[in-house]
């Protein structure tokens, strides 16, 4: 058996920085300097490291994380039970909807799971109906009823 040894392209300081930023970035005149002080780094270190982490795709975004639902937008997770012989065709139909932000094949009878993001709740409901109509499949709609945690803690 071949062991894949994965060497992450970030170091312990990056991990500390990412973890620190999970708890929220300050809103003040020189926020990067404030973070730097907390982590015993220089302001330039923080800026350079963040830029490198973004360039390397280790973090996909840095900035305010907006809550779609609280701005009038709507979000849901939905699943389909797609017959294997129609999988490609259904993938094309579902992906063609601009409201579908992510779509994953998963190893379950419910084998297609996608996230819908819309500007309004009404648009969300209409999109679910449209997907059912176009695919001929029942959509299992699983909007979040409660959120307990969103974030990530890295081993530093």
């Amino acid at each position, binding site marked *: 058996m071949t062991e894949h040894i*994965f*060497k*992450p392209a970030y170091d312990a300081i990056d991990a500390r920085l*990412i973890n620190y930023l*999970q*708890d*929220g*970035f300050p*809103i*003040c*005149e*020189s*926020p*990067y300097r404030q973070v730097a002080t907390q982590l015993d780094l220089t*302001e330039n270190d923080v*800026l350079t490291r963040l830029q490198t982490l973004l360039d*390397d*795709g*280790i*973090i*996909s*975004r*840095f*900035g*305010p*994380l*907006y*809550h*779609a639902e*609280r*701005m*009038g*937008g709507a979000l849901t997770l939905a699943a389909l039970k797609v017959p294997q012989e129609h999988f490609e065709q259904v993938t094309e139909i579902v*992906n063609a909807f601009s409201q*579908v*932000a*992510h*779509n994953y*094949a*998963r*190893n*379950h009878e*419910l084998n297609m*799971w*996608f996230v819908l*993001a819309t*500007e309004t709740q009404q648009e969300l409901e209409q999109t679910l109906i449209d997907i059912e109509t176009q695919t001929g499949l029942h959509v*299992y709609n*699983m*909007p*979040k009823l*409660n*959120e*307990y*945690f*969103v*974030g*990530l*803690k890295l*081993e530093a």
Partner: protein
Amino acid sequence: MDFNDIDLRIMRATQAGLPLVAEPYQLLAEQLNLPVDVIMARLRAMQQNGVIRRIGAVPNHYRLGYRFNGMSVWNVPDEEIDTLGEQVGKLPFVSHCYHRPRHLPYWHYNLFAMVHGRTQEEVNVQIKQIAEVLGESNRGNNVLYSSKILKKTGFRSGNKT
């Protein structure tokens, strides 16, 4: 709901992220032709009322070395789910933890926890740890792994996370 036109402008200007300059809010203020105090006050207000979850980094699990990403799903009693969800969400390897509706009789899982490991073995251990937290309240569970990313885009304007 307290979400005004200034908020919308700030949101659009930061959709791609916060500028990586020493004084990012000052730069936003110049871009939007607004006083920096207003920018900072509105950002604080949006954080307070929950429009902004937080200002921070969104990590890419796969690039961080977590190649085994499982959606673990659990059937727990509805009356206990809030307590249990909080506990599961506190586990260090859980990145997202939600209560979602069942679809009976076919789908009876109501607690979703995304877990991330560097190896399959690591994820198996994490699943056991969640099971331990849930104890006898666990009436059944499953782990769904993604076999393929079929689509992954940024969210459209107005939607994120």
